[in-house]
C-alpha cells in the first residue's frame, strides 16, 4: 500500500496520524465480521455528510471544517494505527458495495461514491499538506543555499500535460500554453486527487469483475448478505423502482402536477404543455421523474421515454435524478431543467413560487435560504408551506417530494372523509 506522508513529522500530537492512503492494494489483515459492516457504515456516514454539505452549497472553508468533524466523530479511533486500519478496511468494503453498480445500482451511484471518496481524499490531503508558508521557507532556504535569488512562493509552479489536471482546466485555474498546464503550488492537490480518482475508478471495474465471477458465490453465506444490505442501508429509498402510485394517466398528471410536483418538475411540465417540446436535459429530468407512459408523452418523445425506461439504447433502467444531481446540472440556452431555487433569477423564482401559493413570510424565508445557497432547504420550506405539514427529513429527491406530498394529501382526504366534510 502506498502512503502519502506529510512532511510535518514533529509538532503537536493532536495533529498526529498525518497519513492518507491511495488504497492501491487491499490490506492483508483479518477483520472481524462486525467491524466489516460497522466500519463501512461509519465511512458511509462520512461520505453522506460530505454529499449533503456539497448539495447545500457549503463554501470550501465550511466544507473543510465539516469533513474534519465528520472524520473525527465517525472514523477516529484511539490508536493511530487503528484509525488507519479502519480507514483502509472501510474503504475496501465500500468498494465492494459500489462496484456492483451495473447490476443493482444505477451508474449514478458508482459515480457518487467515486466523487465523494475523491472529495474526502482532497480534504484530508489538504489537512495533511504542509502549508505554503512552510514550503516557501524551505524553498527560500534551498535557493539561498545554492546562491540563487529568493523565490517568491507565488512563483512556484508545475508544468504538466493538461489532461493530468482536468479539473483545474475546467475551472480555468491554470495557465494553458501549447497543451501544458502551469499549475501553482497551491493547486497541486488537484493533481493528486485526479490520480486518486482515476485509480479508484479503474479499481472499481476490476473489483466488480472479481465480485461477480468468484466472491459473490464463495461468500454467499457470509459477506454477500452484508455487502448487499449495505448498498441500501444508508442512501434512502431507491426511486428507480418506485411504482407506489401505479400508472398515472395524462389527465391525472395535470392535477398531480399542481398538487404534488416539486417546483422543478412543475416548471418543466408547464413548459412542455406550453411549447410541446423540451430539450434533452428537460426531457430526461421530467421523463425519469414521471416514469409513466402518458400517451401524449409517448407519442411525442417515444424514443426518449422508452430510452428512459431502458427499453431502447443501452437498455439500462435510468434512475430518476436526485436533488443533488439536479442542483449541480448546468442548464443552457433554451433549457428549463435544473433546480429553480438555484437556476432561476430571484424575480422569476418569486413569480413561480407565487403561482404555487407561497407568499408573505414564507416567501422571504425561502428566498433567504436561496441566498445562502441552501436550495434543498428552500424546497423543503416550500413543501411545508403548501402542504401545511412539516417535513423533518428535508427534501432530497423530487420523487420523495412527490411521495411525501401524496401521503399528506391522502391523509387529509381520509380525515375529511372521517369528518364527513
Amino acid at each position, binding site marked *: 500500500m502506498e502512503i502519502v506522508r506529510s512532511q510535518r513529522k514533529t509538532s503537536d500530537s493532536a495533529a498526529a496520524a498525518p497519513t492518507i492512503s491511495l488504497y492501491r492494494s487491499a490490506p492483508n489483515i483479518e477483520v472481524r465480521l462486525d467491524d466489516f459492516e460497522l466500519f463501512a457504515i461509519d465511512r458511509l456516514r462520512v461520505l453522506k455528510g460530505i454529499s449533503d454539505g456539497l448539495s447545500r452549497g457549503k463554501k470550501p472553508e465550511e466544507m473543510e471544517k465539516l469533513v474534519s468533524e465528520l472524520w473525527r466523530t465517525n472514523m477516529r479511533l484511539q490508536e493511530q494505527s487503528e484509525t488507519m486500519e479502519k480507514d483502509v478496511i472501510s474503504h475496501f468494503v465500500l468498494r465492494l458495495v459500489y462496484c456492483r453498480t451495473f447490476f443493482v445500482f444505477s451508474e449514478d451511484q458508482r459515480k457518487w461514491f467515486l466523487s465523494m471518496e475523491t472529495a474526502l481524499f482532497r480534504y484530508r490531503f489538504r489537512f495533511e499538506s504542509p502549508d505554503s508558508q512552510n514550503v516557501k521557507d524551505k524553498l527560500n532556504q534551498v535557493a539561498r543555499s545554492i546562491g540563487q535569488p529568493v523565490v517568491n512562493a507565488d512563483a512556484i509552479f508545475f508544468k504538466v500535460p493538461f489532461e493530468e489536471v482536468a479539473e483545474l482546466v*475546467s475551472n480555468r485555474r491554470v495557465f494553458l500554453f*501549447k497543451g501544458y498546464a502551469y499549475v501553482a503550488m497551491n493547486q497541486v492537490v488537484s493533481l493528486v486527487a485526479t490520480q486518486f480518482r482515476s485509480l479508484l475508478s479503474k479499481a472499481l471495474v476490476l473489483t466488480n469483475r472479481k465480485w461477480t465471477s468468484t466472491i459473490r458465490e464463495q461468500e454467499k453465506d457470509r459477506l454477500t448478505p452484508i455487502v448487499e444490505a449495505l448498498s441500501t442501508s444508508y442512501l434512502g429509498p431507491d426511486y428507480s423502482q418506485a411504482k407506489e402510485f401505479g400508472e398515472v394517466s395524462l389527465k391525472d398528471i395535470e392535477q398531480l402536477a399542481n398538487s404534488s410536483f416539486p417546483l422543478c418538475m412543475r416548471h418543466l411540465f408547464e413548459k412542455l404543455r406550453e411549447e410541446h417540446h423540451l430539450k434533452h436535459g428537460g426531457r430526461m429530468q421530467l421523463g425519469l421523474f414521471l416514469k409513466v407512459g402518458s400517451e401524449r408523452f409517448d407519442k411525442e418523445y417515444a424514443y426518449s421515454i422508452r430510452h428512459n425506461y431502458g427499453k431502447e439504447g443501452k437498455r439500462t433502467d435510468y434512475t430518476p435524478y436526485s436533488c443533488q444531481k439536479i442542483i449541480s446540472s448546468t442548464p443552457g440556452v433554451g433549457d428549463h431543467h435544473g433546480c429553480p431555487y438555484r437556476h432561476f433569477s430571484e424575480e422569476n423564482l418569486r413569480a413561480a413560487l407565487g403561482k404555487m401559493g407561497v407568499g408573505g413570510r414564507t416567501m422571504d424565508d425561502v428566498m433567504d435560504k436561496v441566498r445562502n445557497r441552501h436550495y434543498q432547504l428552500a424546497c423543503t420550506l416550500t413543501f411545508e408551506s403548501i402542504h401545511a405539514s412539516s417535513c423533518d427529513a428535508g427534501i432530497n429527491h423530487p420523487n420523495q417530494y412527490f411521495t411525501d406530498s401524496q401521503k399528506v394529501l391522502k391523509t387529509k382526504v381520509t380525515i375529511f372523509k372521517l369528518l364527513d366534510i
Partner: protein
Amino acid sequence: MLIDGHEPVQQQVSTIPKGFNPDHLKVYYGKLFPHADIFKWMSYGNDGKHPGCDLSYFGRREFSFTLENDIYLRFQSFNSATELEHAIREKCPFKIDIGPVYSVDPAKRHAYAQGGDNVFTPMERELIFDIDMSDYDDVRYCCSGADVCLDCWPLMTVAIKVMDRALRDDFGFDHILWVYSGRRGVHCWVCDRRARRLTNEQRAAVADYFRVYKGSENNAKKVSLTGPVLHPFLARSYTDVLEVFFEKKLLCGQQLFSTQEKYEKILAIIPDESTAAELHDRWQGNRRSSIPKGDPNIVRWEQLKHTLQSGKHKGQGLRRCIEEIVFSYTYPRLDMEVSKHMNHLLKAPFCVHPKTGRVCVPIDPDHCEDFDPTAVPALSEVSSLKTVET
C-alpha cells in the same frame, strides 16, 4: 454585395427543384462525395501501408446512416474505402453520422458480448464541438430558430476565431477541421492523436474551459465573470476578438440599443438598479435637446460605458459588467453535451443537409470571415453541374 452578382445563376438553377432530392443525392454520392478522402482521414495512417499500423482501426469506427423516413441504422462499420463507398451508394443515406472507434467492431458487438470479457466500449474519438445559431436567438433580431443570414452569421465567425485560437495556442492541437453544418451552425473536429484519446472527464474539462455562458431561460444574467482580472484566455479573446466585433459589427448590425425592448435587455445585466434606471431614464426621455449626433446604438453604448466606468460608480462589479455584456452577446455558445462524451455522433463532413440541401463544406478558420453560408453549393446545383460536365 456579392449576392447580387450571383442572382442570375441562382435563377437558372432554380428550374430544378431547390433543396433536397434523393435522385440528386444518388448522383452526388456516386460522383462527388469524397469516400476515399474520408477513409484516409479516419484511418489516421492505419491503412496497411505503414509499419506497425493497426489494420482493424477503421473497421472499429461506428458509422450511422439515417435513411428516408427517419430509419436509423446505427453501428455500421466498414473495413475498406470500397466497402464504405458501396454501402453509401447503395443505401443512399440522407444523413451520415460518425461515432467513435470502439474496442471491437461495432457491427459485431453482440457476438463479442457472448464471450464475456470483451467489453464493447469507445476507445478513441475526435474531440468535437457543435455551435448552433438557434442558441443565439436572444441576441439576434434578424432571424430566429433555424434561419441564418449575413447579419447574424458573423456570430459563428467569432466563435470559430475564439475557439480555433485557443485549441491551437492553449491546448496545443494542430489538426482541426471546421465544417459548416449545412443550415445554422458549425462543427469542429479536433483530430490530434492526443485529442482522440481524451477520456470523457477530460473532454468535459476542455468543454468547461470554454464555458462562460451559463444562462438558462430563467435568468437574465447569462454570463458571470468573477475575480479581479480575467483568465488569460478570456482576456485575450475579449481584446483580440469579442470587443472589436461587438463594437464594430454587432452593435449596429443587430441595432442592439435601437428600441426600448432591446436596451432593457442589456440594462437587465447591470447589477446596480439605480445605474440601470438612470440610463433607462436618459434614453427614454431622449428629447431632441439631448440627442447627440450619430447612430443611437453607438451613442448609447458609449454612454453606458461612460456611466459604468465613471468615478460615481467605482464598484469593480460595474466595470466588469461591460465585459459581461460583450461576453453575453458575442462569446461562443457551445452545445456542451456533444463535446463531453466519446460516443456522441456527429454528422460527417460533405453530407448534404436534408432540409436545406446544402453541402456541409469545410471552413478555413484563417479566412472564416469570407465564408458565406448563403453561397454554399446546394445539392441541386452540384449534382447537375457535374452531370453536365461528364
